[in-house]
């Protein structure tokens, strides 16, 4: 019971004392504690119990709380005694006792542990002390030994000093003597060298002592030697320079001379570089000339060399081409390569170049260790000059090769073997010329050039046939007056085209795709690319071909020469285009597919993977316009469906192109009709406008010349068109039907006469016919035999315009499209032309005024047309209504009412035309 009180009691007075205000010692102590606390990081946590000041702030003083700083045991005891029952108090007492015992135990453990640590620390310190004492002694020993070594070494050195000095001296004297000897002997040596022509040796000697002489030239002895040497060397350098610029020096001599000059240091290196370049270029040009001359003279060697690309022996022309290119490469290109190499060695990259030239030891030897030091700007300039030289030479080279491989005028003479062999050889040769590859990227350029050349050939092949096509038409133009068999011409031309494309060009193109050509292996391009090129060439060929046909016949407004070919050419080309669409395109494309395009992707995988959908076939052609996919209906069912995926694709394209061709045929036919219309309407227009219809004599004595010429033209057109375009069945064909037409006409007239007037009697009563021909637009629906004019109301009005009847007529008539696309049949063409003619007639009659003579002339012309134009116009209703309109209008525009021309006269005059 009292123990807790005692255990708690002692701090209380301390606490109280500590807390005494004004106690300086306490304040100092507190400060020290705070420092320690902050050092150990105890901080505020433990502060509650250990630092009363702080605890006071945190906790209110409570004398009853056993853990409080203001705990008062007395009060606490009293409180417990008052509040608690006896058993509780006993329990409380027990609890406190156990707690105190526990605290005691803890304290003892802590004290023991501390003691233990203290003991071990003492032990450690003691052992340290003994160890260190030992070490000090050993160190002293070591230092003594070192001093001894030092002394010994110094002694030896001192002893040997003398000897060494002597040796050095002797050595240098010897050297000097040697040098002097050399120097004194130099002039004679140089002389000797020069006499022997060993300039390089001379230069080497001189270079060895040049600096020495330079340094000692103030001494009289040397001065003389120097001067002597310099004169010799000047002579040498002059000689060398002459050699450099000499016309006869070979490239290697030039290279050597440059090396010497560099060593002599006589000329600034940059200038020398320029001189070297110029001299070499000059030399190269000469070499090229001689090469070319030689190549030209080069005759076929007799030995038959087998191609390494194909097993078969090479044909003579290929061998010749090969010989030429080999010669050219061996001489010109190799020399050029050497020049580039030594130039690089002298001015750009010494070591690498020297190491790189094992095959030309002479040059390598000459230039070893010769390398001019140029400033970086100079080096850039020198390099730039070299690159541009290489560029220009490469360009020249390519030009030469192109010349060698010129595309022949006759494509069939084109030798793909030659192309491939030459290009291949060229590629191999260039590939082996390291310097050229490094500096000029010549290999890349040659590669690109080869491919370009190939596509040029492909284009040329196709352009050739196009040119030939138009050329043949030019012949037609020249001979168009004679009766050419148009159909045969077109058919022959077409089969010629097909034949040439398949049997001549295809084998040629096929050879380009030979798989073991060297440059294709090395190039980024492959067989597929060549095939693509051919395919594209073919596509562009078709499209540009159709486009050219259109522009040929319908020159654009900005064209310089706007005179188109005669219309019949347009007609024939239209048929040609149609023939293309009717199988030629597909035939050619399928042949090409079988032979070429099906090979595509062979290298990649055996099974052709389905390709991505082909882009819409719109090809931008040379003129800049796009040709859209033509009519879908242009497909022809005769072609058997292809098998493989690739060919399927090509055939789809072939159908597209066929469609475009058909659209072109249609367009050309429309142009043909337009051009006919222009010509014919112009004749009518001039005829109608220049004739004074009010002052013509009565009755007319002849047919109008304009109309007979138009009928002639129509007959001609009919003949032309009939050869090329078939009838669609329902039309009247040929001259045999002309009788029919005539009979028909008679029949319609008989109808008139059946209503009372015989034909022979028509002269006695001309007015009966008036109503037949003039009333068409007035009193009855239009159309021949449509009820018979004479049976209708007679007489009344005599040509007075009645708008109501006119409107009713027109209401039933269909609206006619005079201009516009024309169907591709003979009937459609002729109908279109004839109705434009008639409509033109109508329009012009409406602005003319007539006298009786004028009217009768018009009547005569109308009858002429009724007889002879009828067969050309399938639209009978329109035909008659237009002619009736002409006659009605002429009648109405004639003052006074004219008498009709007698049919006897008409018939006899009309029959004069045939």
């Amino acid at each position, binding site marked *: 019971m009292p123990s807790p009180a005692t255990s708690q009691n002692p701090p209380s007075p301390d606490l109280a004392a500590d807390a005494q205000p004004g106690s300086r010692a306490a304040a100092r102590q507190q400060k020290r504690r705070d420092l320690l606390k902050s050092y150990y990081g105890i901080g505020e946590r433990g502060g509650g119990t250990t630092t009363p000041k702080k605890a006071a702030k945190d906790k209110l003083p409570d004398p009853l709380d056993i853990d409080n700083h203001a705990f008062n045991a007395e009060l606490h005891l009293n409180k417990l005694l008052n509040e608690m029952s006896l058993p509780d108090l006993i329990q409380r007492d027990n609890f406190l006792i156990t707690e105190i015992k526990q605290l005691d135990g803890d304290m003892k453990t802590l004290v023991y542990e501390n003691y233990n640590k203290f003991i071990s620390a003492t032990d450690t310190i003691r052992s340290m002390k003994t160890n260190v004492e030992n070490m000090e002694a050993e160190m002293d020993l070591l230092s003594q030994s070192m001093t001894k070594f030092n002394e010994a070494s110094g002694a030896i050195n001192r002893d040997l000093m003398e000897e060494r000095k002597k040796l050095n001296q002797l050595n240098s004297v010897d050297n000097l003597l040697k040098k002097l000897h050399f120097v004194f002997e130099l002039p004679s040596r140089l002389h000797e060298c020069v006499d022997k022509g060993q300039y390089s040796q001379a230069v080497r000697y001189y270079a060895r002592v040049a600096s020495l002489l330079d340094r000692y030239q103030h001494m009289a002895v040397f001065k003389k030697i120097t001067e002597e040497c310099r004169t010799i060397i000047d002579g040498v350098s002059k000689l060398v320079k002459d050699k450099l610029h000499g016309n006869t020096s070979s490239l290697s001599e030039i290279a050597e001379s440059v090396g010497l000059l560099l060593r002599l240091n006589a000329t600034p290196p940059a200038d020398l570089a320029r001189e070297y370049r110029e001299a070499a270029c000059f030399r190269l040009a000469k070499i090229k000339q001689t090469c070319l001359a030689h190549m030209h003279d080069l005759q076929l060697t007799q030995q038959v060399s087998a191609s390494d690309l194909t097993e078969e022996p090479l044909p003579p022309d290929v061998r010749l081409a090969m010989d030429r290119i080999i010669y050219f490469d061996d001489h010109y290109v190799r020399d050029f390569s050497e020049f580039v190499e030594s130039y690089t060695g002298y001015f750009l990259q010494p070591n690498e170049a020297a190491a790189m030239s094992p095959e030309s030891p002479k040059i390598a030897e000459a230039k070893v260790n010769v390398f001019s030091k140029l400033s970086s700007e100079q080096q850039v300039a020198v390099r730039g000059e070299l690159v541009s030289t290489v560029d220009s030479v490469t360009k020249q080279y390519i030009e030469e090769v192109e010349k060698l491989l010129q595309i022949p005028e006759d494509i069939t003479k084109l030798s793909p073997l030659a192309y491939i062999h030459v290009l291949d050889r060229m590629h191999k040769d260039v590939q082996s010329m390291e310097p050229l590859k490094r500096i000029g990227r010549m290999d890349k350029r040659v590669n690109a050039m080869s491919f370009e050349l190939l596509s040029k050939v492909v284009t040329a092949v196709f352009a050739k046939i196009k040119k030939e096509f138009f050329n043949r038409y030019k012949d037609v133009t020249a001979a168009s007056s004679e009766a050419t068999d148009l159909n045969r011409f077109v058919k022959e031309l077409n089969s010629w085209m097909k034949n040439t494309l398949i049997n001549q060009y295809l084998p040629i193109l096929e050879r380009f795709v030979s798989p073991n050509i060297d440059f294709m292996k090395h190039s980024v391009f492959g067989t597929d690319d060549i095939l693509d090129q051919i395919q594209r060439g073919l596509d562009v060929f078709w499209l540009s071909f159709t486009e050219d046909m259109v522009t040929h016949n319908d020159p654009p*407004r*900005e064209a310089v020469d*706007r005179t188109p070919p005669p219309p019949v050419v347009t007609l024939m080309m239209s048929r040609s285009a149609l023939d293309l669409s009717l199988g030629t395109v597909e035939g050619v494309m399928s042949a090409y597919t079988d032979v070429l395009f099906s090979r595509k992707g062979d290298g990649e995988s055996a099974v052709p993977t389905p390709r991505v959908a082909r882009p819409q076939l719109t090809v931008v052609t040379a003129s800049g316009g796009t040709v859209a996919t033509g009519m879908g209906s242009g497909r022809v069912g005769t072609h058997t469906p292809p098998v493989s995926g690739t060919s399927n694709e090509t055939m789809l394209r072939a159908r597209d192109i066929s469609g475009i061709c058909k659209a072109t045929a249609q367009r050309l036919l429309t142009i043909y009709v*337009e051009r006919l*219309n*222009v010509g014919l*309407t*112009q004749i009518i*227009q*001039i005829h109608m*406008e*220049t004739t004074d219809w*009010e*002052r013509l004599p009565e009755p007319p004595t002849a047919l109008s010349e304009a109309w007979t010429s138009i009928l002639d033209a129509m007959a001609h057109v009919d003949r032309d068109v009939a050869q090329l375009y078939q009838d669609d069945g329902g039309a009247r064909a040929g001259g045999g039907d002309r009788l029919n037409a005539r009979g028909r006409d008679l029949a319609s007239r008989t109808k008139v006469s059946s209503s009372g007037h015989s034909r022979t009697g028509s002269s006695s009563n001309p007015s009966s016919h008036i109503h037949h021909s003039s009333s068409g637009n007035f009193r009855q629906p239009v159309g021949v035999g449509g009820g018979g004019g004479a049976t209708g109301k007679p007489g009344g009005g005599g*040509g*007075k*315009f009645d*708008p109501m009847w*006119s*409107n009713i007529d*027109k*209401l039933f*008539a269909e*609206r*006619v*499209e*005079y*201009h*516009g696309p024309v169907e591709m049949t003979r009937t459609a063409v002729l109908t279109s032309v004839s109705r434009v003619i008639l*409509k*033109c007639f109508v*329009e012009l009659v*409406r602005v003319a*005024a007539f*006298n009786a003579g004028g009217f009768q002339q018009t009547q005569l012309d109308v009858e002429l047309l009724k007889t002879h134009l009828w067969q050309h116009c399938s639209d009978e209703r329109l035909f008659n209504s237009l002619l009736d309109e002409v006659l009605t209008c002429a009648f*109405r*525009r*004639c*003052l006074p*009412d004219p008498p009709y021309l007698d049919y006897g006269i008409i018939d006899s005059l009309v029959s004069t035309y045939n």
Partner: protein
Amino acid sequence: MDTEGSVYGLDHQARCLKAQLGEGERSRFFVGTQDFKHPNELHLIDYDEDESLITTHKIPHEFEIRSIAPHPAQSESVITVFKEPLKAPKATLWRLASPESDATGKLRNDTGNMEAVVHIEPSDHLAAIDDILWDPSSSKYNRVLARGKHALALFALDEAKASAIATTVIPVKSIDSTSRGVACASWNPHADLIATGVGAAVLGIDLRTPTRPAYEIPAAHTSVRCIDYNPIKPQTIATGGTDGFIRFWDTRSLVQPIKEVSDHTHWVWTVSFNRIYDQLFLSAGSDCRVNLQSIISISSAAALSDITSSSDNEDAYSADRTSSRDEFSGNSKPTDGLVCTSDHHEDSVYAAEWSAADPWIYASVSYDGRVAVNLVPRDHKYKIIL
């Protein structure tokens, strides 16, 4: 207001129609009949937009009328070109006894008369008069140009004298090998420059230096039928021809037409720019069609719209306008293309003209004597003005 327009039938065939230029209030047109044998009529027709009604005033005219040239300012003065049998066509300036009209302006469908003021006779050099053009630049209106087949002639009009005096005769020769004559002419509204269609070519004739053409288009059409100056951009001319094409040319650069329209299937007989909204363009031909074209891309409106569209983003006001425009017309700006085709005619249409009073009204006449008055479709009109 309806956009259907209306139709009026004449008793005769007709091929000429012109707007009464002096009338600024009502949409009125002169129509001349063409009947070689019977007495003809000059019709003044009035179109009432509110009631969509045509009323007329008939004036007897002895000979067939080939062309009409209304006075540019005086509504009662009009020149007709007509042909007597066996005589070359000639022209007369008439003065109308002013027609009666009711309170709203409609005509009374009556018959009136007119008196001849000045006769314009063809001379030796000018064999026939095919058309008369008023000088558009002078405000005195005392000068007209007569078009013949192979010459143009300037006449001074003096109402005190019975016949006009030819002051200048300009021979016009075809530049192609054919002997086709002058088929049409149009007077530049801002200069003394006449555009003529001669055969296949268009020749610009400067009245001050008539000996050499100011410009020429050698092969404008197979045969040029009609020509019109853009009244707002006089460097633009439109031509129509027997190839069924309408071509627009910039007279400063004539290598290529600046636009080409081929909506007609036969000859184009008349072309006409709207006098106020030159993006509206009228053409008619012997395919019985009257086509209203929008040619905004080459009109003066194209230049204007460039300016407005560039400033559109700047102020809120214009943004408001844009939205309100959308509200009215549904879609935005007008574009090039055929606006509408009139199907009122069953025969060749030889004349189509814009009303002088209302830029949204036009009339056309076909050979069978049918006159049709039409309006620009309402939605297109809103596209233009909003």
